[in-house]
């Protein structure tokens, strides 16, 4: 039983990271009905910024906070400059722009920071480790849960959070009551980028830092978001944890570590086919 428990706990730890990236995807989906293919690369880029800050002599936590802030600003900028012109464009154009963004971020990171793999520090003291989990796993889980709680409070109890939800749900009426919908979307992008940055910094000590580190993570996050329902934030969190546990258990006992990514592929295609709205998502009905 012990190996199983070990894998389940490890799965929860990585799953919480998938959950936060999935949450970033869901936030952008809710606001714009788009799936951001560049979300992983945005997180990767933010992690490189954190790495340079730490290397420049900054302490971990100040660097962490500064990175989240920078990621937020970058997210807002990307929405304003790159995404806004294609807001009402056909899906293909939007997907192409997202892919372009992915490629640019990936290559610019490689250009500036080189493609050599770097190690990224974990800030958690050894005392944090418990019998079945490493200190980093416990810490990552705690940080992610904290971020999720903060987001919940923000969206549920603050006027700005309410305005953002309103802008996403009904842009026309929101505009009529004086909400600046365009800026709410940009803020949503900023928040998503910030959450992604946290996910990147939490996963970097595990997968190591390199420009391609997020490809797999992004796939798991897609699977998590779809599993939970692409328009349900709570679902994304549950989905992330489920995907993390499933991936670890299947990888350890059934299909072997090298085919773990295929789990994500099967989950994505499977969910889209069997239950496109996921566990908690709204069933989408369209009128013809």
């Amino acid at each position, binding site marked *: 039983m012990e190996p199983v428990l070990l894998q389940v706990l490890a799965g929860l730890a990585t799953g919480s990271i998938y959950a936060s990236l999935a949450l970033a995807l869901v936030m952008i989906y809710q606001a714009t009905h*788009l*799936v951001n*293919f560049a979300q992983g690369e945005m997180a990767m880029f933010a992690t490189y910024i954190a790495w340079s800050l730490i290397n420049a002599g900054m302490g971990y936590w100040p660097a962490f906070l500064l990175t989240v802030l920078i990621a937020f600003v970058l997210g807002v900028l990307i929405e304003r400059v*790159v995404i806004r*012109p*294609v807001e009402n*464009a*056909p*899906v*293909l*154009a939007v*997907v*192409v*722009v997202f*892919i*372009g*963004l*992915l*490629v*640019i971020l*990936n*290559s*610019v990171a*490689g*250009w500036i920071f080189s*493609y050599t793999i770097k190690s990224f520090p974990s800030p958690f003291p050894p005392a944090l480790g418990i019998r079945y989990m490493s200190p980093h796993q416990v810490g990552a889980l705690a940080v992610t849960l904290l971020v999720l709680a903060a987001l919940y409070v923000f969206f549920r109890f603050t006027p700005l959070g309410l305005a953002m939800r309103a802008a996403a749900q009904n842009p026309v009426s929101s505009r009529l009551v004086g909400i600046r919908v365009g800026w709410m979307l940009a803020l949503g992008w900023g928040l998503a980028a910030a959450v992604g940055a946290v996910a990147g910094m939490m996963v970097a000590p595990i997968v190591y830092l390199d420009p391609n580190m997020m*490809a*797999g993570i992004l*796939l798991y996050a*897609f*699977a998590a978001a*779809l599993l939970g329902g692409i328009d349900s934030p709570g679902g994304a969190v549950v989905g992330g944890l489920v995907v993390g546990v499933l991936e670890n258990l299947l990888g350890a006992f059934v299909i*072997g570590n*090298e*085919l*773990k*990514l*295929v789990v*994500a*592929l099967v989950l*994505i*295609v499977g969910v*889209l*086919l069997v239950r*496109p709205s996921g566990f908690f998502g709204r069933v989408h009905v369209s009128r*013809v």
Partner: protein
Amino acid sequence: MSKKLLTVTILLIALACVLPFVLTNYRIFQATLVLVYAIALLGLNILTGYNGQISLGHGAFYAIGAYAAAMLMDQAGMPYWATIPIAGAVCLVAGFLFGLPALRLEGLYLALATFALAVSMPPILKAHFLEKLTGGVQGIVIVKPDPPAWLAAAGVKLNADQWLYYFVLAIAIVLFIVGWNLISGRVGRALIAIRDHHTAAEAMGINTAIYKSLAFGVSAMYTGIAGALGAIAVQFVAPDSFTVFLSITFLVGIVVGGLASLSGALYGALFIQFVPNIADELSKAAPWAVFGVFLIGFVYLMPTGVAGALRALTRRRGGGKLLQPKEALP
């Protein structure tokens, strides 16, 4: 086909036939790859350009075609030319099968599913239980085919690079003619109708399910044949040549060349073959930065790609109508 277009096409083919005698062997190899990419892009364009189904995973079909050819040559000792139709058939089936579930996915979701396919292709090729067939991480080395004996007997002297170029050129011409027939006839009209208005197409009596999965199959077949030819030209297949970035390269090709345009496949192929070479001198990362900028730039400024821009240019010069808005990005 108009008379003018026919003349241009014949001139182009004649030029393509002369090329191997004026270029160095390395340039001939590059020209061969351009033709290979053109076939792959034509395949992707049938699906994404004409039928409006977004695929970010055509690198996976390219990989399947390449591996089919390599494994047949390496394991079964088949001659290279015999592997091409088999690779095509395998990809036709693979594409059709992936196209069936894709029927239920639209736009963004299809992009997601195909993206997942592209990302998980290298791990599948590396998998342990397939190692005997695929060669695992090491991949498979292929011997470059020699020109056939009957050619030498007939007094034509070609080296291996020149022969392979003509071999690929012949296949490319056949596939482009087939593609042109497919697109300009009943099938093509059905594909475009489905892209432009799914419900209306269905109401007109078009069996959208059959056409969409067929488009997926044919498109995968083209890309698979290109993969097989590419593997023979490069003489090597390995999992890490077929990452998600290969699929993105194809996307760059059809966006830059021109969506829903046959000639666009050729412009796109030239672009993805030569622009990285030029940009490479700047930095290892530069080709991709250039690709990314071009992707976004073309969507904003030139959504019909090079082919569309040329079309608009010639029409304006001829005093004809301007480009219709319908011909813009589907």
